[in-house]
């Protein structure tokens, strides 16, 4: 699914207009725990999260996400946006909650990109 379609479905606002949103997104992943993101996500997905600090961008970069959506209209600090631009990680803020947003994307055909959650 194209990131532009995801932005439309999420009623989202793009926080990094400098970056192209013509990005192909393969799946979705939700988490507020960065360790979960590192442990069980798969590359090329969109990260849906309530956290807005710069670490979210770093984590997303290491875990090879293609974009981040902040839920409930959360606005990240300037630092987060700066790192995102530097790392070419489009940021979007959506007024929807995590459940509603995820449900809409899933209904529209975006697959879950949760990997194996086993901790062993």
């Amino acid at each position, binding site marked *: 699914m194209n990131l532009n379609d995801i932005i439309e479905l999420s009623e989202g606002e793009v926080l990094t207009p400098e970056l192209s949103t*013509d*990005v*192909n997104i*393969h799946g979705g992943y939700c*988490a*507020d*725990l*960065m*360790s*979960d*993101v*590192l*442990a069980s996500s*798969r*590359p*090329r997905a969109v990260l849906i*999260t309530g*956290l807005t*600090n*710069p*670490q*979210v961008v*770093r*984590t997303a*970069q*290491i*875990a*090879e996400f293609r974009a981040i959506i902040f839920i409930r209209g959360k606005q990240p600090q300037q*630092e987060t946006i700066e790192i995102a631009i530097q*790392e070419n990680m489009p940021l979007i803020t959506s007024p929807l909650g995590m459940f509603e947003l995820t449900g809409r994307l899933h209904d529209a055909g975006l697959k879950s990109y949760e990997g194996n959650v086993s*901790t*062993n």
Partner: protein
Amino acid sequence: MKEMSQQTRQPTEQEKYGRHRPVTDRDAQEINRVEELSYDLKIREVMTSNLHTATPDMPLLKVLEILRVNRISGVPVVQDGKLVGIFSIEDIVRALEKNDFSSTVSQYMTREVVTVAEYESIVKAIQTFTDSRLGRLPVVNKDDELVGMITKGDITRGILLALQRDYKEEELRRYRASHLFEDIISDRTTLVLRYNIKAGDFTHGGNASGNIKRALLRLGADAQLARRCGIAAYEAEMNLIIHTNNGGILKLEVEPHKITLSTTDDGPGIPDIEKVLQPGYSTATDKVREMGFGAGMGLVNIKRCVDKMELESTVGKGSKLTMRITVPPETIASKGKPT
């Protein structure tokens, strides 16, 4: 590829439903490059720009001659550079039915032509092919002037050429990287990269790990190996930032068949190593937890990503975390963690 008429055909399954089969990381990586290319490549890069065209005032017999000589079944009709229609064999048939061969192109051409713009990605052309069920589309520029034609064959050829370019670059990169180890003769060659990590420096947290990952990719590691090392390095780097008194050193050692990541610090040290290795055990502050860290999964994650992990610590002196990853013999590029 000679037919020109905008005739209909059934879309294939792939076009109708997209890709449904669950894919492995490695599959995804390859399929993905083609998908990426369909977004990256512009129509102008793959289209055919050497065209036969007709004009609206051209007599039908003349167009027939163009079609016959070039063995094509249709031509775009152009006036002052602008695309005004398309003329195909079917239009000739219509003229033939009326026995009207003294007319000109403008009387029989199709005026409503589906086009694509040269500056769009080829994915747009693929969509248009699917929606319109046409086999060939005229390409226009932003001023609506005809600049080329595109077929599915052009797209396939364009993607294959781009993949070939990629492949050559990749070969060259790996060639250079492997020579780093092959050309320098020693009994044991090791490339060591050191990063100083400051305690509490959340702003730059992950910077070093990002650089480690990039370095490994440049040395020819495959995406999955680089990802495993990147994740392990990141968790270890965050541990230095969160838990140490004065930060520490994150070190990457690359050898032809093995990668070693390690962190060292000078305190405070860990009183009970057994405990910190338990999933969910954490001493992180609320501030750290608010940032999404400190869930007690860092070391567990690291263990999952590497082949061997050792943690030594002395209270009051410091800790040392060593992570080893084995790389299969043929190259530094591994095929992923052996299972």
